[in-house]
């Protein structure tokens, strides 16, 4: 009985923290961008502008939730739900601490990859259902981008799987007790980070929502809370990718002195700030550059990493 209660507390706690975090990240990102552009950012509402989050929430909840008459209504409404659902589902397999985490799946990594593939439907359907040429172009771009970057996203993780000998994220973390995988799997880390940025379509890979050319890409026609769900989905995506990088390459909850959960949160926070720093300093790529970078550089790098890791693992087994 107490086991079930512990599980329920786990689920509720993780959901609560994540959704609050996604709202808070909007404010964190604005403050950080401001810091790096020598401004202050939102600092008026509440102490240090912390209540800006609440103000944003109130604003987006009270906005008119309008569905354009020319849109394909059911698909239009279901598209933003998909991105929220898939990203939140992915968090189920992430081990936040030695005892914290929703599910302990043996195929945890595959589950994450499957969920991120399903996430493509969200942008594709949103672009299609909007019945707007900019949205469609954005949706096309997003679909092509996410599909191609998914290929080597999965490939880059196979090195980690080989070293740990499991798809289970908890086992992978435990395998990093002595040496974090960011050292032997440095190439994998680089490739996965790049793919992760592209999967969440953040700068410099934010072509699907390039506001200077496509208005807002696949979510041009969205307003109110439906837009808010895309927005929250994006920030949850950043958190997910950061949490995964921590789990797979930076030893998860392992670290000296501090409690494991705090270590996990700290590492994730640093990576999220890294994402914001990228946004502050990078220009947007051209679409053909994005594609050729993915297929001509990142895919061979991932394969090379796979080859080397495989050779090392085989040699170690033989000796």
């Amino acid at each position: 009985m107490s086991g079930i209660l512990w599980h329920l507390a786990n689920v509720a706690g993780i959901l609560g923290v994540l959704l609050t975090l996604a709202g808070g990240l909007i404010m964190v990102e604005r403050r950080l961008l401001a810091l790096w552009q020598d401004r202050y950012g939102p600092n008026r509402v509440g102490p240090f502008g912390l209540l800006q989050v609440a103000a944003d929430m109130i604003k987006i909840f009270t906005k008119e939730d309008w569905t354009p008459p020319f849109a394909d209504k059911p698909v239009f409404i279901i598209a933003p739900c998909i991105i929220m659902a898939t990203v939140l589902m992915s968090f189920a397999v992430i081990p936040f601490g030695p005892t914290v985490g929703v599910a302990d799946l043996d195929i945890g990594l595959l589950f994450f990859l499957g969920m991120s593939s399903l996430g493509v439907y969200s942008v594709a359907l949103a672009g299609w259902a909007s019945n707007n040429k900019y949205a469609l172009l954005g949706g096309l771009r997003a679909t092509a981008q996410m599909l191609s970057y998914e290929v080597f996203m999965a490939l880059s993780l196979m090195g980690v799987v080989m070293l740990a000998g499991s798809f289970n994220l908890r086992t992978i973390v435990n395998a990093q007790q002595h040496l974090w995988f960011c050292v032997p799997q440095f190439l994998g880390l680089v490739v996965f980070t790049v793919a992760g940025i592209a999967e969440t379509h953040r700068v410099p890979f934010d072509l699907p929502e390039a506001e200077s050319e496509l208005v807002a890409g696949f979510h041009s026609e969205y307003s109110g809370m439906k837009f808010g769900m895309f927005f929250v989905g994006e920030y949850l995506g950043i958190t997910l990718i950061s949490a995964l990088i921590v789990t797979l390459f930076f030893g998860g909850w392992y670290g000296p002195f501090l409690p494991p959960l705090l270590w996990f949160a700290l590492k994730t926070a640093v990576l999220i700030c890294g994402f914001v720093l990228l946004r502050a300093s990078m220009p947007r790529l051209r679409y053909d550059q994005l594609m050729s970078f993915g297929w001509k550089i990142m895919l061979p790098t991932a394969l090379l990493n796979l080859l080397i890791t495989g050779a090392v693992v085989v040699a170690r087994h033989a000796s």
Partner: protein
Amino acid sequence: MIRGMEGTKSLLRSMWMVFMHSFHKRETVLYPEEKPKLPARWRGRIVLTRDPDGQERCVACYLCSSACPVGCIALQATEDETGRRYPEFFRINFSRCIFCGMCEEACPTNSIQLTPDFEMSEYNRQDLVYEKEHLLINGVGKYHDYNFYRVAGLAIGGKGKGEAENESPPEDVKGLSL
């Protein structure tokens, strides 16, 4: 390959440079708590000044209202019993005013002047229309000793011909001196 290395280097370098901005001073002036530093000749709220004797400087010549490019100045001239001209009303619509300072340049009596005050927002647009009672101040503004009637040759209440500063008494053209 070399191009790729150089590109990566430049990306990392720009990320580092942006990160170093964390330690730069922020450019923002936190306005209501912290006032901005205005240049000495800032052109802000317009005032009508008085001469050192405490009289209105404005002689209602309409030069300011005709110089005004947006036509936001309206006035009506009148005279007192000594023949001294002054505006019966003087109205500036600050919702139109562009603070160009043309009125100040046109003014022959240094009456209309722009001050370094910009905090004049109102909730109601009508409140931006300033009448003479709002414009006229009890001071000389930027020119401390200037009194138009004391340097002008015009005869006016209490001051006859030739009594102005640097002015000699009028020549009696029918007289026999010389």
